[in-house]
């Protein structure tokens, strides 16, 4: 047998995982050249197939940004994507460099000071999005104290001051003492520029903010003229959303509870500590910025800008977070409108980095509030904590309270006395553990034809334990997750920063049964027409989407009739948090036409055979479908997604 043929047969048998024909096998055993070929070929396979895999960069964000960009361009009729290879590749190379820089992060001097960090349990190097909320709750409920200093860099506030720097000092002591001081360390062109020094402090019962009022960038540097403002609140009810304690920067419960939007970019290291990088849209990350933006002037961000947060894998404290501009022309148009320069999507425009952090408790005097001249008295009166078990738990005779408060301890109890402006009594029980909290508000003598404490379009939910129904709203950027319960014993409102499932469990442990709201509350009549909640009724073909973005569910409907016009609103939301307070709203109406354009930024879009309009400012897609007006609004969603929902509309009951 010839060696060439034998070696070809050896090669074939290796690839097809077949045994060698007997004659070839015999030749191989007796021919040193072919034996060497056989051994060498297997050695090469071993080396080639089992080499140590080189590290593979994460290209998902860059690829998907490009895909979404293309999709939006296509929908807007901006022509086919620029084809070949190098133009955008070059941009992506830069983006990669930026992402690598972000990933390696330069956080020299991160000091873990006395008190040490709370070990939260197992080291979670490949945290999954679905696990993170549970970890966050564990971290939040065990945290007693926290001190941190963040270095902050912000770009493109104004043309004259393209970069600003700040040092933010944060202190927290469970359950409700919080202080942040933000020192503006920017080198301004002159002393006339206002310094963005802001502070917020609360001890729970009192609350105060200090700093300059927001100032339009066009009027700078002449603004502000009146100097810093100081606003104080006394007799504050526990965990008051109107005078909030922006603690998401400590443990981002509100942000990352929206797990369906969470992208776990993977494990990383920041300043030598194991971290998990997660990515989310700015729209979902606003609570991370609230410890800065309660006063003063700050640059705007686009809802779809990307925020990358590096969470400490043992404690879940954010170690660093950055904002990268979204790609695409929608974003460019918005930037022009805002007076911002061109901002490449690979260059961060905001960076906050923990310089130091500790879990030692600050002294109580750090949270001392000295009310200034502008004081608002919220009128909450603290009462002694009830010593008896809650009524009905199982034989207690104390105030009505949950028999199981999600592992939290009763911490404050009090009331708003009735007054001419508030002709009802409102009592509040507050429970807390670490950063986690829950309030149970009971209202007696309620005289309004609406659920207490809940805005429009609540989701009707079954309360566990056959406790009837409640009316739920997810967290927004200004409100916590809430359930309103209309019961024979009065109106109840449960509010918390715990996840929705825990809130429902607590509601299920209440010794009351939730009743459907009275029809007079659900149907509102006025001289111009009728608005009816919970009903979708029209004399035209109502359509429902066969596609919804991940996590979105239909939660509420409403029909409004005025004269010959009927409009049906259907609301879709993610259950845990919808920070824009809107979600996705589908509106269909007869007797209504497409209004004339009112903004130069509006774009013409084809939706099937119909001509429609995209309003980037409102994130609204609207069109006439024959004689029926339809619109879809989603502040947290991009055009490609909203367009897809629109394209999936079909006739049906939904």
């Amino acid at each position, binding site marked *: 047998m010839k060696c060439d043929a034998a*070696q070809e047969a050896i090669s074939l048998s290796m*690839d097809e995982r077949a045994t060698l024909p007997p004659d070839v096998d015999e030749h191989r055993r007796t021919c040193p050249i072919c034996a060497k070929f056989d051994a060498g070929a297997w050695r090469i396979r071993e*080396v080639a197939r089992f080499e140590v895999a080189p590290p593979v960069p994460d290209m998902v964000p860059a690829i998907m940004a490009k895909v979404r960009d*293309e999709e939006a361009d296509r929908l807007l009729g901006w022509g086919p994507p620029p084809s070949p290879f190098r133009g955008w590749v070059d941009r992506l190379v830069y983006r990669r460099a930026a992402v690598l820089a972000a990933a390696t992060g330069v956080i020299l001097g991160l000091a873990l000071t006395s008190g040490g960090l709370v070990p939260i349990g197992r080291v979670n190097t490949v945290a999954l999005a679905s696990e993170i909320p549970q970890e966050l709750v564990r971290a939040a409920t065990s945290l007693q104290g926290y001190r941190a200093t963040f270095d902050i860099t912000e770009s493109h506030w104004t043309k004259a001051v393209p970069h600003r720097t700040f040092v933010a000092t944060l202190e927290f002591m469970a359950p409700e003492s919080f202080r942040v001081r933000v020192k503006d360390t920017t080198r301004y062109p002159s002393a006339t520029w206002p310094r963005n020094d802001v502070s917020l402090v609360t001890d729970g019962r009192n609350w105060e903010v200090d700093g300059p009022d927001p100032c339009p960038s066009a009027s700078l540097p002449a603004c502000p003229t009146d100097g810093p403002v100081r606003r104080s609140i006394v007799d504050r009810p526990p965990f008051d959303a109107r005078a909030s304690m922006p603690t998401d920067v400590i443990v981002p419960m509100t942000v990352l509870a929206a797990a369906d939007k969470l992208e776990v970019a993977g494990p990383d290291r920041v300043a030598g500590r194991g971290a998990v990088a997660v990515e989310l849209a700015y729209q979902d990350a606003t609570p991370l910025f609230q410890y800065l933006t309660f006063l003063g002037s700050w640059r705007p961000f686009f809802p779809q800008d990307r925020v990358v947060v590096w969470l400490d894998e043992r404690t879940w404290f954010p170690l660093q977070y950055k904002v990268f501009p979204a790609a695409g022309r929608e974003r460019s148009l918005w930037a022009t409108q805002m007076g911002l320069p061109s901002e490449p999507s690979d260059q961060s425009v905001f960076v906050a980095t923990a310089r130091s952090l500790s879990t030692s408790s600050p002294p109580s005097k750090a949270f001392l509030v000295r009310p200034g001249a502008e004081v608002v008295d919220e009128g909450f009166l603290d009462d002694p904590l009830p010593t008896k078990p809650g009524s009905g738990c199982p034989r207690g005779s104390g105030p009505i309270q949950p028999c199981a408060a999600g592992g939290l301890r009763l911490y404050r109890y009090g009331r708003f006395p009735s007054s001419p402006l508030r002709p009802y009594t409102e009592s509040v029980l507050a429970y807390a553990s670490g950063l986690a909290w829950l309030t149970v508000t009971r209202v007696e003598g309620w005289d309004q034809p609406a659920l207490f404490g809940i805005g429009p379009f609540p989701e009707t939910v079954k309360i566990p334990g056959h406790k009837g129904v409640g009316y739920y709203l997810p967290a927004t950027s200004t409100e916590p997750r809430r359930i309103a319960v209309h019961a024979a014993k009065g109106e109840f409102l449960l509010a918390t920063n715990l996840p929705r499932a825990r809130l429902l469990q607590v509601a299920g442990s209440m010794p009351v049964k939730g009743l459907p709201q009275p029809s007079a509350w659900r149907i509102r009549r006025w001289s111009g027409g009728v608005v009816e909640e919970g009903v979708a009724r029209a004399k035209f073909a109502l359509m429902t989407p066969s596609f919804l973005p991940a996590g979105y569910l239909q939660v509420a409907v409403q029909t409004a009739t005025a004269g010959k016009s009927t409009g049906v609103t259907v609301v879709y939301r993610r259950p845990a948090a919808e920070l824009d307070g809107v979600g996705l709203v589908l509106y269909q109406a007869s007797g209504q036409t497409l209004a004339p354009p009112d903004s130069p930024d509006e774009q013409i879009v084809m939706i099937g055979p119909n001509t429609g309009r995209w309003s980037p400012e409102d994130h609204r897609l609207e069109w006439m479908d024959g004689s029926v007006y339809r619109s879809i609004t989603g502040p947290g969603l991009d055009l490609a997604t909203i367009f897809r929902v629109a394209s999936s509309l079909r006739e049906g009951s939904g």
Partner: protein
Amino acid sequence: MREPEPETIRRARAGDLRAFESLVRDYQADVWRFAYHLTHNRALAEDVTQEAFIRAYRALQSYRGQAKFTSWLLRIVRNCAIDAYRKTRRETPVAEHAEADLDLDRDRSATTSAADERARIHDAIRRLPDSLREPFVVIEVLGFSYQEASVILGVRVGTVKSRMHRARAALMLALSEEEEAAGEV
């Protein structure tokens, strides 16, 4: 390489960006490795990977399942690598692109004889002509069958078989020449 769930492909074809994103997430490593073997350059492999997924997104409507998804995807990668190669050849001498990573690997691994052998084998693979290196990478490194390799490379199965054998023979020759040269020294 494992195939994706048919439902994921169906959803991606229907325009579901999250489904497409899951495909990107699942296959970016395999695609990058293939691109790296074809280009010898990390940055270029990354560009090729990104371009390949963009082209796959555009072409997904035309994917009818006539070939395995992975074969179809890697064929796109190969085409992108060829385009990238043509482009870089026009702009920059190829030698400048094919370099730094190789040298780094060599430096790192030249400390032991076993590592030295691995480096020599990798060098020899890199020096194969494209027509032989491509089937070698697809079959030997990525573990595809002849049939799948023929789809990826756009040549007949018989051609794949013969090129694969010639690749092995060329590698053996190159390695034995190196050994002889080392012996003479």
